[in-house]
């Protein structure tokens, strides 16, 4: 649906790599241009009309984000460069000052690198331990397994809402409820979920969350760190400079601004943030529930067809998101991606930044199809037809 809104789709391509980034609707592109053409001044600095307009637009996006994720207050919304930066800020700006030797952070083997490496770094600097919540036979996280994995030393559980290879939607609300009863913080990597399912941070009761704008029809280079206000107050700014300080005279007398400015040093990605606001309005207008339903049905259509192809191994048969990972028997995933590319079909091949997952599923590399609301059954039919003929793949992949 809504294909006419996406200039990229005017080309003859089938775009199935939405887990990497989504396409941008015209309104988001136009808004970026509007900023540079109509009021291209800096934010939070000037006393002239167009600078004031920039502030209005910039802060308007903060309100749109707050509303979109149902946060309590605007101070809980910090603009970052993307999901990765947010995850690093949570680990290094907050937990690095809190966690001590042998404290434990629980993750899973199916997390993305940005929810693994920041914690590995704390293992080296703080001596924390990394624990893994076992995945079930479908590679899912269950509350039961979370309960089993928790030890008296567990201080943090950090999980993707939806994982980028398996695509399972984790039972975050139940996990958070249980974790909080045991004084454990919950961090949510929402990169893969934010543009696909409804997010309500108060209902989930998570402590921190990070996501990127570009995976939800917004521009690249913008993300959001959400944190409960009382926790964000204690996040140490890792980037210091203009825009985040109140005053300074010498090294003893440095005063930082209140949230959110304190954590947004330097001139931000103003055009990106402003255009991001447009992306949120765009998704809101369609409705997140409608998007989730559409994707779920489309995925079912895709999987039902893929199952019929005998030379395919599907990694995640069941899953409520639009992600399907599979391999063609005896053919390297990248060769299949090259083959599909000859028909202008864009899919991802590789480990998808989930490099510790291979131990869990026994496969290092896969082809990943990740759907979004502008994908269609006709596109899926085309993919399925091309995958059905293994001889054709072998013949044309070189």
């Amino acid at each position: 649906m809504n294909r006419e809104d996406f200039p990229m789709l005017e080309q003859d391509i089938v775009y199935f790599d939405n887990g990497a980034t989504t396409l941008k609707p015209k309104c988001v592109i136009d808004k970026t241009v509007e900023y540079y053409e109509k009021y291209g001044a800096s934010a939070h600095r000037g006393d002239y009309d167009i600078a004031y307009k920039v502030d209005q637009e910039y802060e308007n996006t903060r309100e749109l984000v707050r509303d979109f994720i149902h946060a309590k207050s605007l101070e809980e919304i910090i603009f970052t460069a993307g999901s990765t930066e947010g995850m690093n800020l949570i680990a290094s700006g907050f937990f690095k000052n809190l966690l001590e030797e042998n404290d434990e952070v629980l993750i899973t083997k199916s997390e993305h690198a940005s929810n693994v490496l920041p914690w590995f770094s704390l293992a080296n600097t703080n001596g924390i331990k990394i624990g893994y919540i076992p995945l079930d036979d479908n590679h899912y996280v269950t509350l039961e397994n979370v309960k089993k994995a928790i030890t008296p030393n567990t201080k943090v559980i950090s999980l993707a809402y939806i994982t980028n290879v398996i695509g399972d939607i984790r039972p975050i609300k139940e996990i958070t409820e249980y974790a909080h009863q045991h004084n454990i913080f919950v961090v949510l990597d929402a990169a893969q979920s934010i543009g696909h399912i409804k997010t309500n941070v108060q209902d989930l009761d998570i402590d921190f969350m990070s996501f990127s704008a570009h995976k939800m029809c917004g521009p690249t280079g913008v993300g959001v760190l959400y944190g409960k206000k009382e926790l964000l107050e204690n996040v140490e700014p890792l980037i210091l400079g203009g825009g985040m300080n109140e005053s300074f005279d010498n090294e003893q007398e440095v005063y930082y601004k209140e949230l959110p400015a304190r954590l947004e040093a330097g001139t931000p990605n103003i055009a990106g943030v402003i255009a991001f606001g447009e992306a949120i309005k765009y998704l809101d207008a369609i409705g997140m529930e409608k998007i989730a339903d559409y994707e779920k049905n489309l995925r079912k259509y895709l999987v039902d067809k893929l199952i019929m192809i005998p030379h395919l191994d599907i990694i995640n048969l069941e899953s409520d998101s639009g992600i399907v990972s599979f391999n063609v028997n005896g053919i390297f995933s990248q060769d299949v991606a090259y083959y599909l590319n000859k028909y202008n079909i864009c899919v991802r091949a590789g480990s998808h930044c989930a490099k510790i997952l291979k131990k869990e599923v026994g496969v290092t590399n896969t082809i990943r199809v990740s759907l979004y609301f502008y994908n269609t059954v006709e596109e899926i039919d085309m993919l399925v037809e091309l995958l059905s003929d293994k001889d054709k793949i072998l013949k044309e992949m070189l």
Partner: protein
Amino acid sequence: MDENVRREIILDHYQNPKNREAVFDERYKKVNTNNESCIDNLDLYILMEEGKIKDIKFQGEACAISTSSTSIMITNLIGKTIAEALEYIENFKAMVNEEPYDEELLKEGIVYNEIYKQSNRKTCALLPYVGIEKVLRDYQE
């Protein structure tokens, strides 16, 4: 070269690669070779004896071009002296980069003589050469 013959040779070396096996012999020198831009990742095991390449084995996951190129390279390098091997490697690189090269010398390696047309696959064909050249230059020193 006929398209079908080319495809057949590449596919044969991809589906039935020669010298793809595990090595536990400590006399073999191991080198990893991988592409930053893609997901190919190969380990090469080289056994030198009296200045000659006695044996090479490889393991790992890689695409059809990388895998077949490795299989063909190994077949052609076994038995060569370091100087001969480096000459082969230089010729192969020249071919892939559209520079003058000696066709005779490359034997089956010439199946990649049109790989330059797919610039994103050039690195796949060259992948095993990066690793092996590193080892041979080390030996030379």
